[in-house]
């Protein structure tokens, strides 16, 4: 068989990359990342946007002293003023309220102390040349109430329960657990990135975060679907361990996973590019960012995390355990068929040990079973 380039082997689903076999490595990396994220939650916490924490709102008349101010002028002036008062402050939205000569602009800025707000007002008066009595400032509550967050979290929990039930019916208990683990991993990682980098959390971020739920599972379902297909009736034969079959499935769906991931990330990338590049801030950037991070992790974890978790869980199942032992025993007995690098191991290998991949002897998908059968002793099959 002529060796082809990796690209074309990927294309044909025959890259044979040993992913499941290196599961200890993946778990170590995942555990480290999760710990870092959780540490960051505790130490750095999150940058909450004005919509969550409340802020200060300034009201400036549009027409005063014979001149009319534009929305941009006012919003820039207020931004300058609040930043003079408090360098960390920022403004969120500017709105024109009312029409005609009674119109005024309302600008929302981060929460300021009374003295800071006074200072900002004073510089505004100077900057815009307005009468001090015309400008008013007010504390504004969070627009995104705690209730919204609470209900979203309740929704999240109900969804997780339902999804686990669905996956148990559609697949099996262990697959449901592995999928859930992978989903939680994605969520923790995304939140971790936000906490570590210090991106601001806005309502758009929360909404994007909830989008990841469905998407991350979507990827996992695609992979597990193939795993289920490959491992149907696996214990009847004795050519592959469960982990090898899983790895094969991951390889076969690798292109699919990368493709779906890429295709889904392309529009999000467009969103991020426009949002962050052209506009600099706002809803588009917030959404683009959280989705990009979340979906990226979703694709990676469905390949590198969900499948290894599944194989680790399955290898503990008595039936599969016995089957794996039988496959390995058979390989050690048939020295002519042992692949290079395949370590010989006693039958009662500890279950944390992962069988090494059988490399190129692993049958290709679609290949017919080998004709040579060696002492298929009756009684070994259940």
């Amino acid at each position: 068989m002529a060796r082809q380039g990796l690209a074309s082997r990927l294309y044909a689903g025959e890259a044979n990359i040993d992913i499941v076999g290196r599961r200890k490595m993946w778990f170590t990396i995942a555990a480290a990342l999760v710990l870092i994220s959780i540490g960051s939650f505790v130490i750095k916490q999150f940058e909450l946007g004005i919509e969550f924490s409340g802020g200060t709102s300034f009201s400036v008349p549009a027409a005063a002293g014979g001149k009319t101010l534009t929305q941009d002028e006012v919003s820039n002036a207020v931004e300058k003023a609040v930043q003079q008062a408090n360098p960390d402050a920022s403004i969120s939205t500017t709105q024109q309220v009312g029409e005609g000569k009674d119109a005024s602009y309302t600008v929302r800025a981060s929460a300021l102390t009374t003295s800071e707000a006074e200072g900002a007002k004073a510089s505004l008066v100077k900057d815009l040349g307005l009468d001090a009595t015309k400008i008013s400032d007010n504390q504004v509550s969070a627009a995104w109430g705690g209730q919204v967050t609470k209900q979203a979290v309740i929704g999240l929990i109900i969804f997780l329960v339902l999804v686990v039930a669905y996956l148990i019916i559609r697949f099996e208990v262990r697959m449901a657990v592995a999928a859930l683990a992978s989903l939680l991993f994605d969520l923790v990682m995304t939140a971790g990135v936000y906490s570590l980098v210090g991106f601001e959390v806005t309502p758009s971020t929360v909404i994007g975060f909830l989008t990841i739920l469905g998407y991350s599972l979507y990827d996992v379902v695609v992979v597990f679907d193939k795993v289920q297909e490959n491992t149907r009736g696996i214990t009847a034969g004795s050519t592959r361990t469960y982990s090898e079959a899983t790895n094969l499935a991951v390889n076969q769906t690798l292109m699919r996973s990368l493709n779906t991931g890429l295709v889904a990330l392309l529009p999000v990338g467009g969103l991020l590019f426009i949002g962050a590049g052209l506009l600099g801030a706002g809803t588009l950037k917030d959404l683009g960012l959280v989705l990009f991070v979340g979906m990226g992790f979703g694709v990676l974890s469905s390949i590198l995390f969900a499948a290894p978790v599944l194989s680790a869980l399955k290898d503990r199942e008595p039936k599969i355990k016995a089957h794996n032992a039988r496959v390995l025993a058979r390989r050690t007995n048939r020295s002519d068929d042992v692949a290079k690098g395949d370590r010989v191991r006693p039958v009662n290998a500890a279950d944390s040990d992962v069988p090494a991949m059988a490399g190129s002897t692993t049958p290709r998908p679609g290949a017919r079973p080998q004709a040579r059968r060696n002492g298929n002793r009756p009684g070994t099959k259940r």
Partner: protein
Amino acid sequence: MHPGRQLGVLGLIFVVLYLLVFFAGGASGSFTNRLKPKLGLDLVGGTQATYIATQAGGAPTKEAMDQARQIIANRVNALGVSEAEVVVQGNNTIVVSLAGKADDQLKDLGNAANMRFRLLIGTTMDISASALNPASPAPSASASGAAPSANPSGSVAPSTGASAPSVVASPSTGGQGGGEAVPSATPSVAPSVAPSAAAPAATPTAAPAPVSASVQEQRAAVEKKIGAKLWAQADKLTAPVDLTTDPKAGLVYKPFNALTPAEVAVLSTNMQMYVPTISCDQLDKRPNGSIDKAEDQVVACYSGQAKVLMDQAKVVGDDISSASPQLDQQNGQWVVSLDFKSEGQKKWADLTRVAFNATSSDPCFTAVQALYGSADHCAVAVVLDKEILSAPQIQAVLTGSSQITGSFTVTTAKQLADQLKFGAIPVTFSAGPMQTVSATLGLQQLEAGLLAAAIGLALVALYAFFYYRLLGSVIILSLGLSALLTFGALVFLGRTMGYTLTLAGIAGFIVSLGIAADSFVIYFERLKDEIHEGRTARSAVPRAWHRARRTIISANTITIMCAVVLYIVSIGAVQGFAFAMGLSTVLDLLVVFLFRHPIMTMFANTKAFLSPRVSGLGRVLRRNSTEEPVSSRVKEA
């Protein structure tokens, strides 16, 4: 199903949807106007209303304001998926912003709401009209507008077919929904009151609550206006003035009819009740919060026809845990089910015990008889602010779940349930000015969003053509179809259920582009596998479809599940987003089943299908044929 037929179904869906867009759900204006989705506050601006809150005894507490903000937010969101913004500004102002012209919707939001449950202990007709114009049969303008009829019975009986509302213990029936209502009793009013009023002796008089100094002052002012002599006379009233024996008896009280509603509100309960010239109109227009004090006996009007004296409020809105409209399966009637919190259950049980066990000598019994013409048990009035929403008779000693029955329609049941559920705003509001507000983000952001969508679509298209060659065109066509369907649905839903499209929603749809394209990748990769295994195109397509379908349905089920759960459970912006996600996923599935599958089936029958240059599928094939002979060799085109 035949491919042509599937395409036909899709076409039909398309035609129906766009017919709806152009001609249904209140479509009006030019063709381009009918194609405009309802855009959100952040994109096109809208209307802003401010409400200034007052709480008995001064400035409202922070907790009360937060609670009020929440209730107002719930009320706004009950109007539809409109993603309104509700914030507390300063110490006592709540600012509500809604997309578009929304003056009507904002008008009633701040309607204060202190929900009180009070035993009904006395009733008298609104006889102000006949008291003022004893000789003339025509009602005067100051009256409540009810023409006095010649019906001599003093009861406000519900019109034929309407059953008087009553409360029963709720049987365990399932059902759900939510809303608000006054039983549609159109009582006939008789100018006679003789036997219907509660015997004053039996009235359970609570010691009049101490009156604050400011009220004393206001009363003194009213007394000056009325005249001390008449005031003293009115103050002694403990029963309705009987106009049947002397039709002119009410005339002396004429000055009371000229009082402003605010002045009426400071009068003692007895005066408000028994001075014949005080009309329902005056009582209904008393300032918000006039009868909020739970420890007072108060007067209010029932359906604008009868003045009703009510006992202290033993149960208040805070005691309610939930309320919802339900369809009673047995008789097909709409009812409102009501549940109380644990501490409220005890209070409710005490109140209903009094009402249920009352005998015919009790004042509440006389009152309910007078109000409904006939009754077996006393009634408890559900009072929201100054309005009696419903005065159901109590049919049992109730603890937890209760049902209010009456002649409800689905709308009135939902209305009453909503009022019960959201009724307990702890402060009273006076509505401030209503103003238009500009967009927070504006059209620049909208254009940017659409540009992002175009870029996203172009990238997906490029990738699809690069990887799947001609099959990419199937992807692009499908995405275009999905987009058209989604757009039509958006326009129609914006008109019918108030779904507003915010920038977040637009972004949600952009993301769904990628997810829609996903199902193609799954399918085409399957197809590749099948061909790889040496099947002919014609047999590979249905097989690949069959296997990919399972995966696609599983994966999409999860997305839809996520959307449905979030839509039901969450509120505000999250709900709007969940709606967008669910909608686009369902429409994508529709396109997958009714467009892509039949198109691919047709495509598979063409010769070009397997050529590497056209579909990219042949690449696996050529390699395959060099490796091992495959039993079913595919002819190269």
